[in-house]
């Protein structure tokens, strides 16, 4: 019984268990704000949602197209600053500013992508790191970005009558964003575009010979990933009501990368899980927070040695569906 698409075979037990698990998780997520009213739990849950969204975005660049980007925080920053500047300094309507945040991050992504994509993979990594630092320093120096203090007092907009200033409302908006992104990314991974990325990740020359415009598709991965980063950055600005260069450091990029790598590069459920764990684990370790980055560093090394495919590996990584 080996039809090409095992998934379309009748409702086998594997698929039922998986959809059951997802429904259970969603129910828990929706119920959370009502179960516990303490702002701390809500804040942690919101942070988890942010990192899930970021991990989904970075996953396109690192997981799907295999480009190790170490400056992802820059697009997060551009999104946050764009929204902050547009809504606070120029009183632009929220939806417009949100879109602008994504588009600006994407424009920056396309500029960097164009300069970077022809490079060998390790050079590309260093250049993205360089761009990340340049953008953080620029945000820190310019007047329009409020210099080192950044921009504070960003008004929370009303979305369908709910003020995003309320933690519970921003929680639900981000939950919707993450759920939609997860679906979109899962479909993308399993489509013609996703296959093209998989091919260029496996063997770029062979992919080119098969009629895949490898440079074009790498750029497409960059545009998708940076748009997502910018969008999430805009929501981050609304949630924090203040945006400062401090929160877009190299460590931020490393944390999002860890989420993708720990969860499983190229695996949508994996990176969502990674996004949650990368916030949850340090919170559990709060008592011994000096050790946080030590544990991050060790985790990266051990993961690469023993579990390069991550906690929830992508289907491609070494497991056949016969």
């Amino acid at each position: 019984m080996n039809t090409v698409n095992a998934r379309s075979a009748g409702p086998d037990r594997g698929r039922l268990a998986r959809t059951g698990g997802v429904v259970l998780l969603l129910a828990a997520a929706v119920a959370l704000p009502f179960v516990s009213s303490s702002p701390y739990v809500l804040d942690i849950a919101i942070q988890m949602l942010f990192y899930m969204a970021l991990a989904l975005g970075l996953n396109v660049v690192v997981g799907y197209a295999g480009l190790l980007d170490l400056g992802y925080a820059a697009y997060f920053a551009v999104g946050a600053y764009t929204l902050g500047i547009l809504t606070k300094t120029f009183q632009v309507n929220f939806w417009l500013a949100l879109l602008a945040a994504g588009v600006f991050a994407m424009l920056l992504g396309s500029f960097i992508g164009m300069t970077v994509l022809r490079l060998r993979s390790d050079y590309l990594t260093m250049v993205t790191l360089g761009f990340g630092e340049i953008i953080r320093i620029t945000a820190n120096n310019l007047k329009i970005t409020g210099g080192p203090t950044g921009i504070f007092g960003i008004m929370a907009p009303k979305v369908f009558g709910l003020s995003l200033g309320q933690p519970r409302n921003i929680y639900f908006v981000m939950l919707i964003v993450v759920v939609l992104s997860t679906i979109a990314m899962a479909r993308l991974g399993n489509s013609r575009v996703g296959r093209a990325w998989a091919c260029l990740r496996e063997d770029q020359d062979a992919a080119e010979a098969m009629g895949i415009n490898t440079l074009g598709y790498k750029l497409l991965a960059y545009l998708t990933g940076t748009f997502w980063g910018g969008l999430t950055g805009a929501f981050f600005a609304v949630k924090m009501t203040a945006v400062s260069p401090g929160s877009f450091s190299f460590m931020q990029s490393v944390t999002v990368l860890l989420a993708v790598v720990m969860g499983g590069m190229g695996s949508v459920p994996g990176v969502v899980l990674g996004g949650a764990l990368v916030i949850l684990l340090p919170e559990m370790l709060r008592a011994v927070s000096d050790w946080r980055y030590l544990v991050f560093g060790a985790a990266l090394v051990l993961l690469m040695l023993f579990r390069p495919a991550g906690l929830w590996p992508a289907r491609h990584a070494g497991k056949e569906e016969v």
Partner: protein
Amino acid sequence: MPLLSVENVTLTFGGLTAIRDLSFQVHAGEIVGLIGPNGAGKTSIFNCITGFYQPASGQIVFDGRSVLGLRPHRRTELGMARTFQNLRLFPNLTAAENVMAGAHCRTRAGLFTSMLRTPAQRLEERQVREMALHWLEFVGLKDQANRFSKNLPYGAQRRLEIARAMASQPKLLLLDEPAAGLNPAEKESLMELIYKIREGGVTPLLIEHDMSLVMRICSRLVVLDHGEKIAEGDPESVRNNPRVIEAYLGKEEEGA
């Protein structure tokens, strides 16, 4: 009007001239073999034709149109598909997915249609799957559809690479030593496959060392030595051409 015309192509790596002033043509429907001792520049000319190398001078015209300067994926779209000398499959993708990759330039689904999973996208996905199965069946690998290509036996991987190339519905199929490492039985089925490909209207151009295979299958041969064409013509005349024998002197005498 030839399907492919290589005109006075010269390729240099720094000081070294890999190919010097090479010209030959391939007409639709014939099976041309490119032969010559190791290092004669066979794979190099293949890379020039398919766009991986930029020749220093000369012209490459395909289907009446110059393809110089086009990147490889553009040439594949125009109808030029290839296999590789040392098997460049996608190891962690299944056989079916490898073949579907070949069909990339014949399908259109983009970022948004994939994310929204529009009816048109779903239809195209089904069609691509069926087409992949068709080509797997064509090379006799239908039952290996879901296995990772890296886990397939060597002979099967060779045939998978051909299926992948055929999936891009080419006019010209460049085969780089397809018979390398095959046992006699596999060579026989390879020959039938190449004939079947030609019946399907695709013109094969192959590099091959196995003289017996080349002699039986090719309608015309082009012989290279040190980057230069030293002979061209039907297999019989080429076999007796003194320069060809001399070029091959010192290699083990290839029995007929």
